[in-house]
């Protein structure tokens, strides 16, 4: 893959032991991101997109594979190496209602990472920095002493963003940061995140199930299905020329807020098969209208069909 990649993930696997066996949450995913770009990760609930984001940061230690950030292998970073890594790589969580300590006020919430990472010293400096961060994320300073329960979802998510930004990271995993918000607030947060990216050259992994959001914010998009990567390519290419049958079905299922669109919905019957002790073969085979015998016996390899367009499917020629 490209040499100028900031983050490189190679054959990443994360299995969870469960009573029934082993749950293959992420099963051999590889990708790379250039600095300052956004990789959107889309998929349905349970497809392993959040686990992928967490495994990249080492919040769930990977079972197998490698995560390389700026040339360093951080897959199993420990001690100081891990601490350093956390200053470079941060996460914004989905639910601004449960990811903030309800007994801390805004000032305390934002100063916590500053103190832990010894970024600011002394009360005065910390307060100044908190004020600066609140300003950056658009939180009025009158909320300095408010507690999370007094604020609405959009403002809470701004606190989450300020906390992530406090250590001046280069790279942020955004795990469904706008899913819990109403559309008008969602738009505000998306704009803020895009502004911050432009100003600071941040790299994002943007995890979401919302395809119109991912299209808006991403440079590249990866479609995940049941722990595996189905397709990855540039944003425009994915919407203009989707190749994987799952991507096609997914795109046709989006409700479009317009009455002039002709809908050719591709019906995908059935539901996602269990990721616990999965059978060999393509995970999508049981729902795929093009599935052949080979699909049930052999996992398709990821192929680069066009420059930058990766697809994992046996039947591309047949379709």
């Amino acid at each position: 893959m490209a040499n100028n990649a900031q983050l490189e993930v190679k054959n990443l696997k994360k299995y969870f032991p469960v009573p029934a066996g082993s749950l293959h949450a992420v099963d051999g995913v590889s990708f790379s991101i250039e600095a300052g770009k956004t990789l959107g990760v889309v998929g349905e609930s349970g497809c392993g997109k959040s686990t992928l984001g967490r495994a990249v940061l080492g919040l769930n230690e990977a079972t197998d594979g490698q995560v390389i950030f700026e040339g360093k292998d951080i897959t199993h970073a420990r001690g100081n190496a891990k601490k350093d890594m956390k200053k470079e790589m941060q996460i914004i969580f989905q639910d601004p209602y449960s990811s903030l300590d309800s007994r801390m006020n805004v000032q305390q919430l934002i100063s916590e990472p500053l103190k832990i990472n010894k970024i600011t010293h002394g009360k005065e400096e910390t307060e100044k920095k908190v004020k600066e961060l609140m300003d950056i994320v658009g939180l009025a300073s009158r909320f300095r002493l408010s507690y999370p329960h007094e604020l609405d979802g959009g403002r809470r998510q701004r606190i989450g963003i300020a906390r992530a930004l406090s250590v001046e990271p280069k790279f942020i995993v955004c795990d469904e940061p706008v899913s819990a918000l109403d559309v008008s607030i969602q738009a505000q947060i998306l704009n803020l995140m895009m502004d911050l990216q432009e100003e600071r050259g941040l790299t994002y992994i943007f995890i979401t199930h919302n395809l119109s959001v991912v299209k808006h914010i991403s440079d590249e998009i990866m479609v995940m299905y049941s722990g595996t990567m189905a397709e990855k390519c540039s944003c425009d290419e994915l919407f203009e020329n989707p190749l994987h049958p799952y991507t096609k079905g997914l795109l046709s299922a989006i409700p479009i807020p317009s009455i002039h669109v002709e809908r050719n919905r591709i019906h995908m019957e059935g539901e996602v098969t269990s990721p616990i002790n999965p059978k060999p073969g393509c995970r999508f085979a049981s729902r795929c209208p093009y599935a052949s015998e080979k699909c049930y016996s052999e996992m398709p390899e990821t192929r680069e069909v066009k420059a930058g367009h990766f697809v994992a499917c046996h039947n591309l020629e047949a379709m």
Partner: protein
Amino acid sequence: MSLLEIKNLEIRFNTDAGVVHAVNGINLTIEEGESFGLVGETGAGKTTTALAILNLLQSPPAEIVSGEIIYKGQDILKMSKNKLREIRGEEISMIFQDPMTSLNPVMTIGEQIMEAVKYHSGKSAADAQLRMLEMLEKVRIPAERSYDYPHQFSGGMKQRVVIAEALAANPALLLADEPTTALDVTIQAQVLDMISSLQKENKTAMLLITHDLGVVAETCKRAAIMYAGEIVEIGTVEQIFDSTAHPYTKGLFNSIPSLDKKTDRLMPIRGLMPDPMDLPKGCKFAPRCPYADESCINECPPLKDLGEGHYCKCHHADKGAPLYFPDEKGNELAYEHGLPVSNPGNDFLGKGDGPNGK
């Protein structure tokens, strides 16, 4: 005569913290067999309205201050408990947002579907079972699974069980409260298609509550947009989508990232929905509206008739005109009119707390 007619409905909740004005004088009608979308953001009063239709609001704290809900000529709000029991489930039934909490975890799904049928039709157990199996087939769940419990089903299947239950007694009106919000897009597509086809087959009218304008475009014929307990715009789907009149509705459309064109930045609505305990006295949307002027702040606009069943609650209703106009540099910036912006640091494009944000 319309199937359902809501007249000037006003509901408030009397809480320890104060009076919450949840629904503030709404009017709407639903014809037989029609699918009607009720759109709005969290806290707009959509669910409260639906619960009032079934007279399910708990009082106290809820208080229906005024208004009538006329169903087939009778006011639901004045019905006796026995009469209500007859109507609920048989005439009007409801699908709730979260299928996990609306199913009984200790009853098999077969029993749950039969319960409604037995109660309303007085059918024998054997007949009720036949009806149950028929419903399961319609929602494409294998008959042998009727002995399974809710936890053995996935989210999409559970919602299909709820649909089977709601439609088992052949109601004339279905209230669907965000029926697909908890589901993934591909499953959402399956469930919506199923609701629509069953609804057409049985000629059931539907009130679909959602925050997703895409879902409305696909399933409804008419729709109303709710904001802070009021209906701000109502009309056919064509009128609402193509000649949008209310600034709030326009703002909603601007906030949704488009799938067909790449825009650099979205145009969110500034600020937040007002606190329902402390509503502005004039137009409820005025503090967030780029058109707002003196009259909007002092005077609540009437529901203006724009013709052909299209109504809009705005002093400046302007069909189809864009909400924002480009500035002199050609950037699609906010057109600010009327209210001076006291804080020049405020960024209209949603950087944060504007002067009107609370």
